């Protein structure tokens, strides 16, 4: 795909994000779009957000579970960029008016104390480079109409990232079994679903290693201090005005988030 088209689609996604509306799936319009093209469109979309005043603060890993990979017909995760405008603190009420068609998912987030430079990074290197892990919610959102995404659509759309909330209980991955830690998700005081760290690529550390290696090949830095959302350990939960979600990671702690208002769709 030529540079002009990459810019055009990146700009289109940026405008859709800014105006809280959706666009038709890119793959419907460009059947030959490759995964590489999709990442270049993502970089353009994020470049526009940075030009508009945001900073890149981390990465998210998506498509980490077998059911989602089967659904999208892929054999590996994808990633997107976290920007300063996506950050919410635990206890914040998230205004759904800032989102289009949001759904929540519960994850484990990593914060690095050392740079990770792929290729060649293993899960052991990830543990060594990790400052701490925290339970978190990612509120995914899609700028693609009705979430009708194929892998190229979601990658171009920054891996369907919306906003995210980090919990406050920091854990050391040397003192916590991040692979077998249970994930309990409650919605409005009732059990919604359960999961476990291993649902993410066998272990969340494997997903982070995959990202370090993928970024290494693309020449994108993976820096100390960055936040990495390692991939969903729960079902996707649609959220509406007044909903409150709590996720609890066994042996670590909880993250709580509330929602108000109405999303665009």
């Amino acid at each position, binding site marked *: 795909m030529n540079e002009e088209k990459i810019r055009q689609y990146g700009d289109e996604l940026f405008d859709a994000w800014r105006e809280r509306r959706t666009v038709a799936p890119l793959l419907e319009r460009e059947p030959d779009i490759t995964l590489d093209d999709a990442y270049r469109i993502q970089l353009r979309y994020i470049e526009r957000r940075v030009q508009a005043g945001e900073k890149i603060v981390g990465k998210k890993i998506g498509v980490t579970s*077998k059911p989602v990979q089967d659904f999208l017909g892929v054999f590996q995760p994808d990633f997107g960029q976290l920007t300063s405008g996506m950050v919410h603190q635990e206890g914040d009420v998230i205004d759904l008016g800032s989102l289009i068609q949001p759904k929540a998912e519960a994850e484990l987030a990593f914060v690095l104390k050392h740079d990770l430079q792929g290729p060649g990074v293993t899960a052991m290197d990830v543990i060594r480079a990790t400052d701490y892990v925290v339970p978190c919610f990612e509120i995914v959102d899609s700028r693609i109409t009705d979430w009708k995404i194929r892998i190229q659509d979601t990658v171009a759309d920054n891996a369907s990232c919306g906003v995210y909330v980090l919990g406050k209980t920091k854990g050391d991955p040397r003192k916590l*079994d991040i*692979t*077998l*830690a*249970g*994930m*309990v998700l409650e919605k409005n005081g009732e*059990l919604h679903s*359960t*999961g*476990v*760290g*291993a*649902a993410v690529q*066998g272990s969340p550390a494997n997903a982070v290693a995959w990202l370090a290696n993928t970024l290494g090949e693309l020449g994108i830095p993976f820096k100390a201090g960055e936040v990495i959302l390692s991939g969903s350990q729960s079902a996707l939960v649609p959220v509406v005005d007044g909903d409150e979600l709590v996720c*609890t*990671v*066994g*042996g670590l702690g909880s993250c709580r988030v509330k929602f108000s208002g109405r999303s665009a769709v």
Partner: protein
Amino acid sequence: MSPSNELTLSREDIVRLCERVEGAQTRAYAIPKLTDEYPAMTIADGYAVQSELRRRYLAQGHRLVGWKAGLTSKAKMQQMGVDVPSIGFLTDRMARPESSAISMADLVHPRAECEVAFVMKKDLHGPGCTREDVLDATDYVLPAVEIIDSRYSGFKFDLASVIADNGSSARFVGGGRARYVEELDLRTLGVVMEKNGEMVAMGASAAVLGHPAEAIAMLANILADMGEHLPAGSFVMSGGITEAIPVKPGDSIVARFQELGSVSMRFV
């Protein structure tokens, strides 16, 4: 339809149905669900058949080692089309050691599921048993795999029929690491089941009625309805955290539990 707590079967019916279930369990064949012949069968009827089955096994020299709660997760209730949990008894003949080869010759269509098991240090008497009562009466918890095997064709049943079939109980394997309940958050234990090295089921222990001890309290309260109690020394399985996974000869199962180690077995 009669209320679930009302007995509709005669003594002769109970004995006949019990013999039918016992034959299917002992010789490992599938039978139509009992409600095909007795559509008015209630939950109380199901427990009457189960109690007769227990009486007969114990008379044959089997030893009662404990109990199991079944159908305790939303996923499981939906999978099986029922809306309340159930209980069944466990005997020494159903126990298999960790890391052993389990014969499938005497099973119909078994499935394996991961559970947290409790070993009691005090008697537990319902009604009115709570999660706190259970934790107070628990000596230790350990990880377990239950091998369920409905004796009904196609694993298709209703609550009355499954209770009469002793909650599909067939085999169980306890193992891993024994732990005091005070040292664990029993609500958030993560579990992964692997079959032949591949992850096939996952979850956390809250999937069991919000907390596995709730299932033990429920079990003690059902026992109280039958005029019985849960004695000290009982081994009690709290219900599947994961869905039940079919197994066949040659399959190897490993259940990995947060804080509790793992339990493994293979089927031959």
